[in-house]
């Protein structure tokens, strides 16, 4: 587990779920703070794929959150939701709605229930993120959006290779 802790592990426990697990070399109070403080979220949520332009967090049951980022290609993506459970340093449950769904897709279909847990052992923290989608179709669409990211990476790489070829 420790040897491989730098990679996020993604599994699909059921037809409607995605489970992401990752271990961090930091106590959970810090991980929780980095997860729930807007200025800190801005610094990591971009996943090296663009710039986070808005982070709003009203960290209480019934409070809302909204993240917006502009991807390197210029596309703006936004997500928002409402906190259902807030147990400091332990557990967060919130809804998450993707704001860029195609026309004809209901907000309900674009909304998942996300549970994040923070568990500390020997000064290291394991974060698990369980995404529960309303249907298998939504779950699959979420995973496939990651596919597009991968494609974008490949295109970026191709572009840099092309530019390098242009030099004499």
């Amino acid at each position, binding site marked *: 587990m420790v040897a491989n802790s*730098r990679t996020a592990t993604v599994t699909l426990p059921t037809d409607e779920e995605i489970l992401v697990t990752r271990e961090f070399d930091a106590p959970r109070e810090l991980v929780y703070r980095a997860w729930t403080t807007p200025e800190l979220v801005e610094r990591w949520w971009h996943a090296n794929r663009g710039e986070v332009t808005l982070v709003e967090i009203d960290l209480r049951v019934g409070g809302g959150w909204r993240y917006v980022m502009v991807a390197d290609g210029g596309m703006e993506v936004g997500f928002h939701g409402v906190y259902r459970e807030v147990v400091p340093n332990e557990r967060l449950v919130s809804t998450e709605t993707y704001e860029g769904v195609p026309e004809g897709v209901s907000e309900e279909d674009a909304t998942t229930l996300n549970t994040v847990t923070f568990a500390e052992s020997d000064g290291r923290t394991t974060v698990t993120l369980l995404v529960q989608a309303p249907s298998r179709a939504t779950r699959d669409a979420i995973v496939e959006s990651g596919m597009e990211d991968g494609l974008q990476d490949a295109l970026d790489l191709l572009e840099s290779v092309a530019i390098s070829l242009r030099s004499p």
Partner: protein
Amino acid sequence: MARTAATADAFSAVAEPRRRELLDALAGGERSVNELVHALGIAQPQVSKHLRVLREVEAVAVREDGRHRLYRLDGRALKPIHDWVQAYERTWSDRFGALDEVLEEMQREEEGAHGGE
């Protein structure tokens, strides 16, 4: 990415928790049905039923060894699933990589603050 019918079948086959337990058990190498019954702690007919589904999508292969039938994992059927989640996994790996840097800086700041006391 559109998934083919065969891939979708593999997804369904693997979606069942007991079948994932079977695949986990087979990840350690070839196993007989009895060994799998022991590993999962469920009745033999159920193990056989799940093995049949996994064989149908070619996630599991079988061979005769004397009186035993030995089952093993066949990674080829599972590769589309692996590829499919891999890009999603990479997004989160990159995101968490950035979070690592934030956490390191926070820890340095805390140490600095304590050092100044």
